[in-house]
């Protein structure tokens, strides 16, 4: 079954897209619900097992950042995910109601962590950016902060 044949929406470049939306509470553990939804979407569009796993981990880390840094574990602020599928790509928007990344931390360096005995952290963005084809960060008054994960198709 071709997913293309269904929910139609004109996109700027005249492609057919379809969307799946998910909303989860800002609580640790809920990122696993997003991971499983991501896997189902990835399987549905026929992504390979390897790319499916990569996407799941990127989604998990983007959700964890949205839960922790974006929504500060605030119960009244859900994290919203929008999976949008076109013929060219699958994009996953992970949306929180925070202010976005203010200072981009340096890429973590394992050698340095081991040598200087500094605490290990900051692997989230590193993983996100290494596991999908592109990552964008957006901010809008209306929607809050968006981490957009992009997987190119064929």
């Amino acid at each position, binding site marked *: 079954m071709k997913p293309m044949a269904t929910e139609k929406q004109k996109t700027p470049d005249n492609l057919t897209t379809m969307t799946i939306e998910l909303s989860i509470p800002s609580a640790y553990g809920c990122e*696993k619900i997003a991971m499983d939804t991501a896997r189902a979407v990835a399987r549905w569009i026929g992504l390979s097992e390897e790319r499916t796993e990569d996407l799941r981990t990127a989604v*998990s880390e983007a959700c964890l950042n949205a839960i922790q840094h974006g929504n500060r574990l605030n119960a009244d602020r859900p994290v919203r995910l929008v999976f949008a599928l076109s013929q060219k790509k699958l994009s996953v928007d992970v949306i929180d109601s925070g202010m976005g990344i203010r200072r981009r931390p340096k890429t973590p360096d394992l050698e340095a962590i081991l040598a200087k005995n500094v605490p290990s952290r900051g692997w989230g963005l590193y993983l996100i950016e290494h596991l999908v084809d592109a990552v964008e960060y957006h901010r809008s008054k209306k929607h809050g902060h968006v981490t957009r994960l992009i997987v190119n198709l064929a």
Partner: protein
Amino acid sequence: MDDFKVNLQLEKSVARLSMSGDLTHLAEERMATIFEKIQSSGARFLVLDFRRVEYINSAGMSVLITLLTRSQKAGLELRAFGLSPHYQKIFDMVGLLKYIPHFDSEESAFKGLPS
């Protein structure tokens, strides 16, 4: 949520740490406590069994890196087995595989160690 659990077996100078559940920030305390036990046992090798760990997030990776830092200080040699191909790839990306070599099987992970 799959609670994180650990099981420690000490034999001669080899410690075997079998983990199960989710390796996240919630594993931090448990891992700190267990590391003290390992250290005071005088073990020289630590073999990590990941077969029943299905989810490792970035906070869980940091927990492992802390374990690695402490192991290096204590002169403990680390080994691992049972990671899924996906997490092997991530450990490789991050540079962890250099310090915690991954073996294809339980048997090969223990090969050459005192028994």
